[in-house]
């Protein structure tokens, strides 16, 4: 296919942003629906081209399509940076994920954001967000990956803080940007070190250098860990996970996009994109696997006790991203990205479902919901499908990719395998806990200020949910016969088989564990065989620890940032600046003035006195000439 079309994939949403900001917003402010249509048309166009790109790459046996570069900065003998596209199998898969999920989210947003005064602004930012993510996916060198990486971060900031008059939203936006920037620091340092050692930013060249062993071991490890720290920030891995749960302050469709296809997927994608650097360093691979495996269970445990439906989903995302990292760290690109691919659809759907519920009840607090299955059948049905997929129930999408991750971790990191297996149980439990609290039992009234009865959302919101529900069922079938692995250049196309997979012990075990989790959730929150209050009582301190999210927010924000840095060290420097540095300056000035005042005493203005001193002086000269001469 012509390469100009590939450029359009990311240029179309960018044009949409420009048109909305500079044409629609100033001149058609009374027709807000135009902004939505523009965005949908642009991203729809990107999706269509992405589909063609996928087939083109498939026809090319997974190899990159040729695209000419554009020169950006050139300093002879010092530096050369080009802007180019890299469209290989990894990019092609990501393009589908990003454009498809984004398209669904934009359609849904028309209903969800209806009547919001910032409608144009919303779609402008959404277009830019999608454009940045597509640019990141398409970039063929690390500099431009970083450029779009930051662009994605900026758009998250703008969208999380969309309702900026709410202090909580403004704080969450700032937190997201600064925490991820902490990771970006490592990413940037990694890029610098890599460039110093190889003299190139080009990803294909770096792959080649890593594979041929041209970069030495220790350097490779440090570079990989630097890049990984960028991924830890963006993909909300421990210890930089704190921003993601707060990010739900943005409009819910934004959360769907952030959690499924854009912001957090960027981190996993980065590791996959630079994977040869990791693959040739044992330490880097182990680091990725351990951080991923630990994050998976750590976040899932917090998800068990959250009462806000979006927070449950947020910790679920962190946990699932941990799975992807674990998959990358133990198995490889195909395994990690396959989970990203499947996760994108069901997680987007879950957030859209949460938004739909919020649309009806005015709240995200599950304790005020209940009984919604009767009034919101479509939302209920799609939410259950997505949850089953997330829990890893055969034969839905999540089952296939989660199974591969468990298998690969059992092979190389048995301890992490057991953690991952416990996480499977937790995942099933917290999702069905959420379902029973939200949709089961009787309606508990919704938000205190909500009036009337909850109702199903309009078709413009339901249709994207149904499409995503279908994808949540079928997207995993891609690898039933090993086709996905083969496409990604991983293995020779031996898939698990649709039914034969259940004859193996590991998939059966994980399926049993997931069902156990669902049953326990049923026992506690639906059948009430066990009382949730009693359980909470039994695990009092443990529950508190989970509910307070292991006190990481307090540790970072209060102890570290506020007490140690802002009010401690930085305040000390400020005092130093005012009192010591500037104090010295003023001291010298005051000293000079005081000195002048003191010396002025001698200038009495009395001629007799001056005469006397002149006489003494002359006498002294004469005497010294006489005696010393």
């Amino acid at each position, binding site marked *: 296919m012509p390469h100009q079309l590939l450029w359009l994939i990311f240029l179309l949403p960018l044009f949409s942003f420009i048109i909305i900001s500079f044409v629609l917003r100033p001149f058609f402010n009374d027709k807000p629906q135009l902004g939505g249509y523009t965005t949908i048309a642009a991203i729809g166009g990107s999706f269509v081209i992405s589909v063609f790109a996928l087939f083109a790459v498939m026809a090319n046996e997974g190899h990159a399509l040729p695209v000419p570069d554009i*020169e*950006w*900065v*050139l*300093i*002879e*003998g*010092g*530096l050369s940076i080009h802007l180019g596209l890299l469209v290989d199998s990894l990019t092609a898969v990501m393009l589908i994920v990003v454009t498809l999920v984004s398209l669904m989210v934009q359609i849904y947003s028309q209903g969800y954001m209806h009547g919001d005064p910032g409608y144009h602004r919303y779609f402008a930012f959404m277009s830019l967000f999608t454009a940045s993510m597509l640019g990141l996916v398409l970039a063929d060198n690390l*500099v431009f990956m*970083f*450029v*779009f990486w*930051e*662009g994605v971060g*900026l758009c998250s*900031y703008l969208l999380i*803080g969309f309702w*900026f*008059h709410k*202090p909580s939203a*403004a*704080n969450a*936006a*700032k937190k997201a*940007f*600064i925490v991820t*920037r*902490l990771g*970006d*620091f490592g990413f*940037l*340092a990694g890029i*610098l*070190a890599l*460039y*110093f050692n190889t003299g190139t930013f080009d990803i294909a060249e770096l792959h080649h250098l890593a594979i041929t062993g041209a970069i030495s071991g220790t350097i490779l490890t440090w570079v990989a860990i630097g890049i990984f720290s960028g991924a830890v920030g963006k993909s909300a891995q421990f210890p930089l996970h704190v921003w993601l749960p707060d990010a739900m302050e943005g409009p819910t469709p934004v959360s769907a996009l952030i959690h499924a296809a854009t912001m957090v997927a960027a981190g996993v994608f980065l590791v996959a994109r630079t994977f040869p650097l990791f693959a040739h360093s044992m330490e880097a691979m182990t680091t990725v696997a351990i951080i991923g495996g630990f994050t998976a269970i750590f976040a899932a445990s917090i998800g068990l006790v959250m009462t806000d439906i979006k927070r449950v989903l947020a910790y679920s995302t962190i946990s699932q991203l941990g799975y992807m990292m674990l998959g990358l760290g133990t198995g490889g690109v195909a395994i990690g990205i396959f989970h990203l691919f499947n996760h994108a659809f069901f997680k987007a759907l879950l957030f859209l479902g949460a938004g739909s519920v919020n649309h009806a009840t005015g709240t995200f607090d599950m304790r005020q919901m209940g009984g919604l299955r009767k009034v919101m059948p479509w939302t209920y049905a799609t939410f259950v499908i997505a949850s089953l997929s997330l829990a890893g129930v055969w034969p839905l999408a999540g089952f296939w990719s989660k199974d591969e991750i468990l298998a690969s971790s059992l092979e190389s990191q048995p301890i992490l395998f057991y953690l991952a297996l416990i996480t499977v149980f937790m995942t099933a439990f917290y999702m069905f806990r959420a379902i029973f609290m939200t949709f089961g039992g009787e309606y508990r009234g919704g938000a205190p200020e909500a009036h009337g009865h909850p109702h199903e959302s309009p078709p413009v919101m339901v249709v994207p949910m149904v499409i995503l529900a279908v994808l949540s069922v079928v997207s995993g079938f891609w690898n039933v016969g090993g086709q996905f692995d083969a496409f990604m250049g991983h293995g020779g196309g031996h898939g698990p088989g649709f039914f034969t997979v259940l004859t193996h012990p590991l998939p059966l075990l994980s399926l049993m564990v997931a069902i156990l989790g669902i049953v326990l959730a049923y026992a506690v929150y639906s059948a009430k065989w066990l009382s949730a209050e009693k359980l909470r009582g039994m695990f009092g301190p443990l529950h508190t620890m989970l509910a307070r999210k292991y006190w990481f927010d307090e540790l970072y924000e209060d102890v570290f940032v506020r007490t140690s*840095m*802002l009010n401690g*060290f*930085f*305040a000390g*420097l*400020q005092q130093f*600046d005012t009192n010591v*540095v*500037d104090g*010295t*300056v003023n001291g010298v*000035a005051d000293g000079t003035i005081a000195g002048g005042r003191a010396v002025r005493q001698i200038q009495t203005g009395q001629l007799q006195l001056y005469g006397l001193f002149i006489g003494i002086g002359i006498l002294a000269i004469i005497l010294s000439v006489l005696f010393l001469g």
Partner: protein
Amino acid sequence: MDFPYLSLIIFLPIAGAILIAFIPDLSQRMVRWIAAVFTSVPLLLALIMFVSFDRSSAAVGVMQFEEKVSWIATINANYHLGVDGLNLPLVLLMAFLGLMVVLISWKIDLRVREYFAWLLLLEASILGVFCALDLLLFFLFWEIEVIPMYFLISIWGSGRKEYSAIKYVIFTLFGSAMMLTGILSLYFTTGSLSMLDIAGAGIGSFRAVIPVAAMFFFLLGGFAVKLPVFPLHTWLPDAHTDAPTAVSVVLAGALLKMGGYGMIRICLGIFPEVALRFASLLAIFAVFTVLYGAAVTLRQTDLKRLIAYSSISHMGYVFLGIFALTQVSLTGATLQMFSHGVITGLLFAVAGLVMHNTEERNLSKLGGLARQMPVVAIIFSVGGLGALGLPSTSGFAAEFLVFLGSFTSTMVVGIKVLTILAVLGVVLTAGYILWLVQRVFYGPVLEEFNWVSDADILEKVYAGCFIAVIMLVGIYPAILTDVIKLGVLPMVGG
């Protein structure tokens, strides 16, 4: 001799200042228009020069648009102007800011004639510093600049304006005294005042009257006060805070760059060996300035003072890029000077607008203004994003080149660790910029600012110009780096 572009660029603002000061019975309106015309033409000339500048590899280290006339023959002083890749972007920057500050000052109504006369003289003197290739001429322009600055701060300023103005003068004269010592010792060593001749011959070929390293540090001291470098920086927050808006824009935008320019042109150009010998030590100062400046910025509660401290931190990157001594790092440092000039210029202009419209500058009392002044909020955010080095703004291109050039420097000991530490500065920068934006524009809408008006058409126009430059250089930095690289190559022995 060809068309005297540089002389016109320098002397047109002076001519404007004379017209404004001496034509009787000028209306305020007339004064403003004269100022606008006499700053527009230099900008236009600078743009023509920029477009027609020879970017081929034959232009490496060659002065273009050169003018040379004997001035004081007995001491071999010449009226010698010229631009290469190093100072052309700075001339362009000052010419751009020159017109912008006239627009920013449009609403000044106190002693209008004097104000614009001083403002034009200020512009001319800074342009003179950037163009002069003769040490005496350079010093002359350097000293002239202090006079308008003193009056502009002490008459049209606010707060402790007399204190700040005199502090600025004394600091600058302290620096000038060191610089003059350096220039005189250079003259008595070489018998020449031409920067190019001395650099070309090499300082090592003369019998030095005082140790060469001492000359280097006398000159560096003078420049370090201006840039500024820790611990010579405390004049800056006071001067910025108390200066009128337009003067803060010139101060941060162009005046600080006189220091950076002097370091590259004179300290590096004439004393490459000394610079190399002390590069590690100076890089430590650079990184300390970056981090210390950022940390102190985080503690500020005054709108303008915060931006002032952030300038100190950002100038640390320039200092680092200079003494990392590679072509890329020097290109980055020069680009950072240009970029910071535009970005911080915009930030000060908008901060001034916020202060003017709300009559409030205390950050703990501002808030929620995005509802009352949406356009100002957008403009300020773009400036802020440039300051925190977001890609697609010039700030990113400049900082990235500084980091890259510094990290890959092989001549300076310990530069890798220092560069990584400097990169940490970008995290702190994100902290204070986002905090500042949130503090001023986000949060609940405050009733007491309901009467506040948004940017008017004039303000939108000049802010639009700033943003266009920031984005243009950010998206396609080669527009400047293709010029700058020609100028810095001779500095690194290329």
